[in-house]
């Protein structure tokens, strides 16, 4: 237990430095862009004059020297304040919190779906190496790996919403339907199916390939041979012995991917009008809403770090021989 605590401590300290570096780099990067938010707002208002633009700049502190703005921002982040959105007139933290649940639901479901289906398919393929089911799964994995996900999304909408009318085509829930409790959960779930499947499909392919390769790697190792010699059934061998060892690289990879899923959901959130953080990030880029963008970067980076630490911990659970180090 003490080992885990000190491991966590070290990881956290390291994480803080990484986060600080990310905050500084992002700040400088995003500010290197042409155009400032005051100009955009003035422009979009359809008419503007110097006074209006100056007012906006002053209001947002954009008239101060860059290093001062950076200092203020870093100090703010350190105290849990991610700043104020220029355009939306709200604290960035509020905006992100609003958008985070839909994204977490979407990416969470897609992740679980991808991991379960991927590992199952990968195992199935590895158990039947060279047979048609292996080929079929390999081809399926290859295809979903090679297809642009937004395209898959559009095709699924065409098929399941437009042609068959089985599932809603976009949005998070039926607005104005006044559902509550269980009905609402079902409603959200219906909206969730297509985006989650679309997003999950790509990662499923990745995990299936990884699992298959990893099982093949482990299959001929000595301990498996021993198990086989003991006369255990092949299924039991695979699930008890092989998979347990083969799954490690899959978990490592999935752990690293988990945080990135949020970035990957930009495309899906665009196609399905899913009111999540990915779409917020893209809008923020287009509108040069620096504070929001920096906030999203920060939050997603925190999530990646958290996922990485969790992955390491999980690693030690799955395989007790590995010390957390």
């Amino acid at each position, binding site marked *: 237990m003490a080992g885990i605590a000190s491991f966590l401590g070290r990881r956290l300290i390291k994480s803080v430095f990484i986060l600080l570096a990310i905050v500084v780099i992002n700040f400088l990067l995003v500010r290197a862009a042409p*155009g400032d938010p005051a100009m955009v707002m*003035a422009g979009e208002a359809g*008419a*503007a004059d110097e006074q209006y633009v100056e007012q906006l700049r002053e209001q947002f502190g954009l008239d101060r020297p860059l290093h001062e703005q950076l200092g203020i921002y870093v100090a703010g982040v350190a105290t849990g304040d991610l700043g104020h959105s220029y355009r939306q*007139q709200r604290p960035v933290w509020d905006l992100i919190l609003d958008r985070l649940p839909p994204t977490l639901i979407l990416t969470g479901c897609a992740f679980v779906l991808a991991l379960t289906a991927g590992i199952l398919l990968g195992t199935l393929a590895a158990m039947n190496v060279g047979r048609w089911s292996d080929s079929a799964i390999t081809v399926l994995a290859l295809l979903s790996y090679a297809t642009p996900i937004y395209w898959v999304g559009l095709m699924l909408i065409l098929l399941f919403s437009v042609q068959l009318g089985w599932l809603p*085509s976009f949005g998070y829930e039926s607005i104005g339907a006044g559902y509550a409790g269980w009905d609402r959960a079902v409603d959200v779930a219906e909206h969730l199916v297509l985006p989650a499947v679309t997003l999950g499909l790509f990662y499923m392919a990745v995990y299936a390939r990884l699992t298959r390769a990893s099982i093949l790697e482990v299959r001929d190792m000595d301990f498996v041979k021993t198990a086989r010699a003991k006369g255990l059934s092949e299924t039991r061998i695979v699930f008890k012995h092989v998979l347990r060892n083969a799954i490690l690289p899959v978990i490592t990879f999935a752990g690293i991917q988990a945080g990135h899923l949020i970035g990957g959901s930009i495309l899906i959130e665009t196609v399905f*009008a899913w009111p999540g953080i990915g779409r917020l990030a893209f809008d923020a880029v287009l*509108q040069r809403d620096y504070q929001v963008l920096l906030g999203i970067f920060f939050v997603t980076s925190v999530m990646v770090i958290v996922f990485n630490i969790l992955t390491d911990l999980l690693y030690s659970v799955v395989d007790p021989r590995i010390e957390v180090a």
Partner: protein
Amino acid sequence: MSNRLAFLRRLTASGAVAASLLASAAMVAAAAAPAMAQEQIQKGGTLSVIVQPEPPILVLGLNQQGPTQTVAGKIYEGLLRYDHDLSPMPGLAESWEVSPDGLTYTFKLRQDAKWHDGTPFTAKDVVFSTTEFLPEVHPRARANFSHVESVEAPDDHTVVFKLKQPFPAFLKAFEVSSAPMMPAHIYEDTDYKQNPKNATPIGTGPFKFDEWVKGSHIHLVKNEDYYLDGKPYLDDIYFRVIPDAASRALALETGEVDVSQYNDVEPFDVPRLEALPHLSMTTKGYEFVAPLSWIEINTREAPLDDKRFRQALAHALDREFIRDRIWFGLGRVATGPVNSVTPFHEPDVPQYEYDPQKAEALLDEMGLEPYADGVRAEITLTPMPYGETWARLAEYIKQAWGKIGVEVTLESTDVAGWVQKVSNWDYETTNDFVYQYGDPSLGVARTYISDNIRKGVMFSNTMGYSNPRVDELFAAAAVENDPAKREEQLSEAQKILVEDMPVIWLLEMEFPTFVNNRVHNAVSTAIGTSENFADVWVEKKK
């Protein structure tokens, strides 16, 4: 055109001005009524409207972007409304009067209007809005009300504007987005932009703010205390944020939303949606903004500084192709700087028909001979990043100009970069569109007069065009009280502009407004779906 002129003459004629105005206002109101009378109005129900992109804030005085108007137009109101011919109709003002010398505007306010928090709406709010709030934060209103010498409230329901000099366009300045009435009791002596009440906007309109789920929807509910009896008919309105164009079209198709406006539906989807039995399409309701698309040219840069070059570029474009193939038939080929639905449009100007040979002849005349690879000149085009259709237009322009030996490099930017480049004159050509706001003195002159060459300011004279005669004509027309003289001045200005070609006018744009057939009266005025929707009612969903 002649109708509008006649109206304006009536406006300034002495004697029974107020009476005739009141009469015409009543006539307009009556004209809008029959559609309603034909069918039994059904009360109650929910309307679902697309709003895209999501507005940054709903306080109309602080932000006047299109989406903000769509939503906030139901919450806030102006003193006047305007019919499709841009004639004023009663809003928060039930009647108005213009003195014969064009210097005094007197508005009689409704006695029974209230803010959503129950406070009565009075002349004090009008004085506050037009002298304090709007001049401080609203660029367009600041320009309009700079003509005002004083604003007085002789009693709680009368407001008198005294102008420094005649400004006949002044009567167009009271549309809801141009001069939304803001509550004095909430904003007086506060920092308007930081006021905590901005999160829960309070207006006088038929609908009240209820909830805003960012990234998803905005919910407005019926104002039970609205001053017009029995109105509004609807129980509530949902404004749905749908970022993807294909999803928006689908939402209309499936009946998930009832109304779309502006660019919500991409032009290529228009014919398909129009054919659906449950949808109707109209291009009415944009008369106030009267958008005009054009190619802006930075006239400071060679060879763009030569008007023959600009004329050649104009001759190289097939604007009917642009209308038919890129906008799928929406819009009218523009002939000059004033949209033909705006008063004082001058049709008798030089024409720039599609004629690549003429274009090449003009380039030859300039001495721009083609090099071995056929290229005569190289310029850049920084397209407005406002979606698919504008990108298609830029691609077409590149090909069309390439055909006469003008090689175009497209410079891609996002909205922020584009605004930055164009407003700081760091561009050669760009395609975009401008609004006209009902009168050339409000929406047209600003982009051509040398006074308005202001670096860093978007939708000013970013072309850097300067012609003393044009300056003189626009300046004179702004303060000319005699409509006939005014027309003369504005016509001359238009003729000069079309000859000089500081911009290449492309189309008088038409936006498609789609309305589900179960919705009635969605478009009844010059601002279309930005109107307050007090008259809108829906048939129950079957």
